[in-house]
C-alpha cells in the first residue's frame, strides 16, 4: 500500500502509529487480529521499519551496521552479507565508516536490511530518498520479491512507482488546517 499526500498531511505520523512508536488519538492498530499495543513483541517479530532516520550509525562501517541490525533483531548472520552490499553498489565501501559515504550510499546501507529478513510487514518512510535511478529499480525488484512471498509493504513516496504491482492500493491523505 502506498500512502500519498502533500507535505504535512501526516504520512510519517500514520506510519509511526502503525509501527507502534506513537499513539493514535483515536482507534487501534490491529495486526493478525490482535491489538499491537497489547502484543507488541509478537508484532515486532513481523515488522521491519525504516524511517527518515534510518538507524545507521555513522561511526560504524556498513558491514558493522548490517551485523548490528541483524543481531538486535535476532537474525543469524547470513553468509551473503558482502554479496548483498555488493548488489547495492557498496563494493569496497564495506569497511569504511558510514559517515564518509554519500547520502544515497548511507540509505543503501539501511536498505540492505530488506534483503535479510523474514518480516511479513515492511513499513518504509520515503525509501527512495537520495537513491539514484538504478537504486530505485533495484528496490522495486525487492518489493516484488517480498510481495511474491506473501508479505506486505506500507510505504510513503512522492515518486510514482515505475514497476507495476498488481494489488497496489493507494491511500491519499489530505492536508487540513
Amino acid at each position: 500500500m502506498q500512502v500519498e499526500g502533500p507535505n504535512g498531511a501526516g504520512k510519517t505520523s500514520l506510519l509511526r502509529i502503525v509501527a507502534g512508536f506513537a499513539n493514535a488519538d483515536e482507534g487501534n492498530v490491529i495486526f493478525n487480529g490482535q491489538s499491537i499495543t497489547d502484543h507488541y513483541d509478537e508484532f515486532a517479530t513481523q515488522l521491519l521499519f525504516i524511517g527518515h532516520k534510518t538507524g545507521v550509525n555513522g561511526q560504524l562501517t556498513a558491514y558493522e551496521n548490517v551485523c548490528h541490525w541483524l543481531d538486535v533483531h535476532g537474525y543469524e548472520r547470513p553468509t551473503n552479507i558482502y554479496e548483498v552490499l555488493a548488489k547495492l553498489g557498496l563494493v569496497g565501501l564495506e569497511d569504511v565508516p558510514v559517515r564518509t559515504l554519500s547520502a544515497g550510499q548511507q540509505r543503501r546501507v539501511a536498505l540492505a536490511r530488506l534483503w535479510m529478513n523474514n518480516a511479513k510487514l515492511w513499513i518504509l518512510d520515503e525509501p527512495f530518498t537520495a537513491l539514484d535511478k538504478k537504486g530505485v529499480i533495484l528496490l522495486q525488484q525487492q518489493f516484488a520479491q517480498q510481495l511474491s512471498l506473501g508479505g506486505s509493504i506500507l510505504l510513503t513516496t512522492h515518486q510514482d512507482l515505475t514497476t507495476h504491482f498488481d494489488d497496489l492500493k493507494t491511500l491519499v491523505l489530505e492536508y487540513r488546517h
Partner: protein
Amino acid sequence: MKISHSYWQLFYAVYKKDLTLAFRQRAEIVNPLLFFLIVITLFPLAIGPEPALLARMAPGIIWVAALLSTMLGLDKVFRDDFNDGSLEQLIASAYPLPLSVLAKVLAHWTTTGLPMVLMAPVFALLMNLDSQLLSAMLLTLLIGTPLLSFIGAIGAALTVGLQKGGILMSLLVLPLYIPVLIFATSAIDTSSMSLAYGGQLAILGAMLAVAAVMAPLAISSALKVSVS
C-alpha cells in the same frame, strides 16, 4: 533467514556497539577522567595544601567529582541513537527493550565508572588519603558508580527528546544522587574511625540491586515517551 533467539546475543550486540563507538572516539573515555582529575586538583589549590585538612575532605571531594564526571557522559548514552534512529530500531526489535537498555547502561559504566574506580587510588594519593581508607573508598566507588549510571540514565532517557536537555537532566538527576553520596561518604567516614562499614555498603548494594532491576524498566518507558 534463520532466527536465533538469544537474549545474550542482543545484550552482547548492544554492549559491544557502545564500547566500539567509545573506543573510536577516545575523548569520550578520557574527558570524564580528565575532568575528574582536574576537579580533584582544584581543591588543594583553593583550600590550601594542608595534608590533614585534605585527608579529612578527600572522600567527599572524590565522590562529588565522581558524581559530576558521571554526568558528563550521560547525555551521550541515548542521544546518538535517538538522533540516527537506532533507538526506534531497538524498540521495533522482537527483544525486550529493558535488556538493550541494561546493556547500554553497563557500557556507560564500563567507559566512565570503571576507569574512575581504577584511577581512584592514584587520585587518593593526591589528596593524601590514608591507605586504610583506600579500600573503603574503592568499595564504595565500585558499588556506587554503577548506581550512578542507572539513576542517571533515567534522566538521560527522559530528556533525550529535548534539544538542549543537558542542564535539565542535571537538575533532575543530581538530587537523586544525594542518597548515594550520603551512604558512600558515611562508609568512608566510618572506616576512618576504624569501625565496621559493612552496613553502609549493604545499603548501597541494596540500592544497586533495586536500580539494576527497576531502572531498565523506567528507562524503557521514558525512551518510548521520548521517541513518540
